């Protein structure tokens, strides 16, 4: 703010000097010119009266000729200075107004306001760099969970959209280059409450720069980065970027998961979606020849995965000079029937419309379906504005990079245990995953189950913490009983258990808890509520562990003690 004040003062120096000089001359003149009072005596206006007169003359208030009617000489002086003072005022005010609407000053003011808003944040928050499709999806879901964030984007228009939505949480945004360290610091990189910085701008180089800046300026902050090429990924990994997300690689891995472990993929999809969405089913991906249209980053990532799994694939690519094209590539646009036929579409089981142009991808889908109606279609969607078109195209799998990144980052930010669970689950067989998905479906048949973490501490599990402090042993199996009838099990699953020795997937029921342990539950909203009783209420916990009800009043306790 100080810089803004100094800027205004320096720029107003000229007008203010002019104004005070004009006032000084006008006032001095009035005191020197002799006047005549009511009785005909000569008098000289005092400085007090002269300054009073000039003040109301210059501001066009005009109280009249005081303290006595003026002589002609005084009127002549007043006449000249009436115009001069008014003109000077207009000039001064004009200079002030143009200064206030000056872009530099406005930017200084918004930056000051942003800096203030960020400094006032008292809760943990995330710094999001890039407010494009991914960024806005991410911020929306954070906002819905009442999680604070700050945003930097290079385009002011996008931030206008951010400012329009301030319910239920105000999220400060800065228009500026996220690659500039000073902007990152302004957005709270070095703020003690900054938990995590998310670099999801469109520019790989900027993301890389954000990651290294964050690691240098505040090593405690977790860094999540989007990367579109393997060399940038390797570079980011070299200085310890915590999570690197490549949407195409991610999707290609999921696709290969879909071919050999569809239930594993189902688990991933369920746990990455926002809660309350309807349950989805396993997508059966057929085995056979695949056709990949477009050999950009997306096509390459898919081709690599398919070759690794020894699934036959043909590539169609309009540009023959694309590096790394496989030997049997068909050169030509995938939108035309003869190229698709040349790639043997009649024998193919699936097609991947993976160019970076939405209209071409839609055209590929339509043409390919005409040639082979049984095709399994995977469509890549680049822009969110084409949502309805792609929904109408009835592609079997839709791939939208912004969705892939946003859902992955959302789980990382809101519930990192889910990510730990998924990486442990990947080591298990598909049958194991099928059993788990069946159990989840039996618990919550309609919508996606809710997943929530619990740490054994004062805030999350006060009753358990107290019981452990008294030396009693509480097991995971105890917690999953219902506090209404202890023989009844709560409809929930303990997905993950983590203590100082390590993290375990689906722990045993008789695992004893100790303070500081972390648990990940999946279940219905109802079971979430009921579990809270066991965690927080002493009487409920006592009942589920022993079967008897603790007397709640002092008298009751005394009676019980004397009876026992």
């Amino acid at each position, binding site marked *: 703010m100080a*810089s803004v004040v*100094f*800027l205004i*003062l*320096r*720029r*107003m*120096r000229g007008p*203010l*000097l002019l104004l*005070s*000089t004009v006032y*000084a001359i006008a*006032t*001095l003149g009035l*005191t020197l010119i002799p006047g005549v009072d009511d009785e005909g005596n000569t008098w000289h206006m*005092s*400085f*007090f*009266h002269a300054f009073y007169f000039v003040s109301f003359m210059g501001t066009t208030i005009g109280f009249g000729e005081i303290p006595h009617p003026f002589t002609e000489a005084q009127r002549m002086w007043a006449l000249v200075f009436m115009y001069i003072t008014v003109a000077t005022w207009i000039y001064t005010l004009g200079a002030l107004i143009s200064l206030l609407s000056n872009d530099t000053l406005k930017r200084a003011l918004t930056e000051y306001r942003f800096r203030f808003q960020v400094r006032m944040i008292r809760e943990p928050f995330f710094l999001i760099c890039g407010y494009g499709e991914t960024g806005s999806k991410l911020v929306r879901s954070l906002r819905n969970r009442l999680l604070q964030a700050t945003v930097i984007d290079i385009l002011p228009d996008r931030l206008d959209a951010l400012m329009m939505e301030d319910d239920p949480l105000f999220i400060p945004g800065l228009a500026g280059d996220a690659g500039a360290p000073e902007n990152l610091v302004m957005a709270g990189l070095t703020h003690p409450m900054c938990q995590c910085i998310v670099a999801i701008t469109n520019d790989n180089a900027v993301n890389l720069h954000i990651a290294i800046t964050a690691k240098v300026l505040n090593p405690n902050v977790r860094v999540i980065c989007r990367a579109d090429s393997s060399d940038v990924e390797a570079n980011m990994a070299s200085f310890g970027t915590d999570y690197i997300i490549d949407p195409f690689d991610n999707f290609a891995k999921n696709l290969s998961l879909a071919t050999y472990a569809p239930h594993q993929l189902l688990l991933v999809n369920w746990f990455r979606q926002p809660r309350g969405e309807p349950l989805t089913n396993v997508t059966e991906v057929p085995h056979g020849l695949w056709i990949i249209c477009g050999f950009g980053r997306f096509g390459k990532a898919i081709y690599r995965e398919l070759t690794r799994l020894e699934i036959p694939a043909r590539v169609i690519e309009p540009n023959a000079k694309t590096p790394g094209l496989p030997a049997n590539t068909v050169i030509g646009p995938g939108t035309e029937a003869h190229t698709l036929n040349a790639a043997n579409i009649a024998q193919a089981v699936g097609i991947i419309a993976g160019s970076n142009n939405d209209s071409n991808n839609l055209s590929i889908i339509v043409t390919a379906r005409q040639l082979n109606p049984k095709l399994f279609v995977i469509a890549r969607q680049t822009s969110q504005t084409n949502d309805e078109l792609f929904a109408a195209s009835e592609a079997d799998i839709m791939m939208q990079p912004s969705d892939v990144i946003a859902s992955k980052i959302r789980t990382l930010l809101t519930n990192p245990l889910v990510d730990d669970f998924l990486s442990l689950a990947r080591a298990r067989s598909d049958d194991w995953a099928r059993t788990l998905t069946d159990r989840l479906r039996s618990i919550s048949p309609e919508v996606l189950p809710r997943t929530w973490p619990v740490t054994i501490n004062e805030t999350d599990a006060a009753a358990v913490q107290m019981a452990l402090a008294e030396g009693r042993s509480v097991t995971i199996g105890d917690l999953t009983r219902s506090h209404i009838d202890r023989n009844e099990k709560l409809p929930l699953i303990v997905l993950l258990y983590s203590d100082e020795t390590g993290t375990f997937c689906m722990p045993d029921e008789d695992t004893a808890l100790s303070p500081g342990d972390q648990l990940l539950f999946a279940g219905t909203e109802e079971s979430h509520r009921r579990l809270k009783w066991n965690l927080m209420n002493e009487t409920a916990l006592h009942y589920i562990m022993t079967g008897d009800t603790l007397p709640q009043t002092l008298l009751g306790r005394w009676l019980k003690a004397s009876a026992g």
Partner: protein
Amino acid sequence: MNLEKVVFAFTIILALTVNFGFFIGDIDNPAHHHVLELYAAIFVNAVATILKFGDRSHMGAVLLATSLVADIQLVAAAAVWGYAVHVSGVGLTPTVMASIVSLAGGALIANVISVALLATETVLLRR
């Protein structure tokens, strides 16, 4: 030789000299202290203040502070004068004159500091 520096130094020194001109004389004798001199002192001090606006250096900040002090002292002196003559009607009694002149004396000290700072800076930055 820089015209801006000339104007700057001129104004600051003039603020001191005019202030001194008003201050000198018997403290309670209205004949020794002319209203025009007070008026000139206020105007020159205001100009000096405005010229010091916007300098972000430490020296600039202190110079601005001394000027603001001088302004407040001189405006207070003028206010006392105006009140005694026009509002209360006591007139320029020795008591009133003494307080006007002592207020101007305070401004004089601020102006002396201002000039001293200017001189120090000039000596230190001599090229």
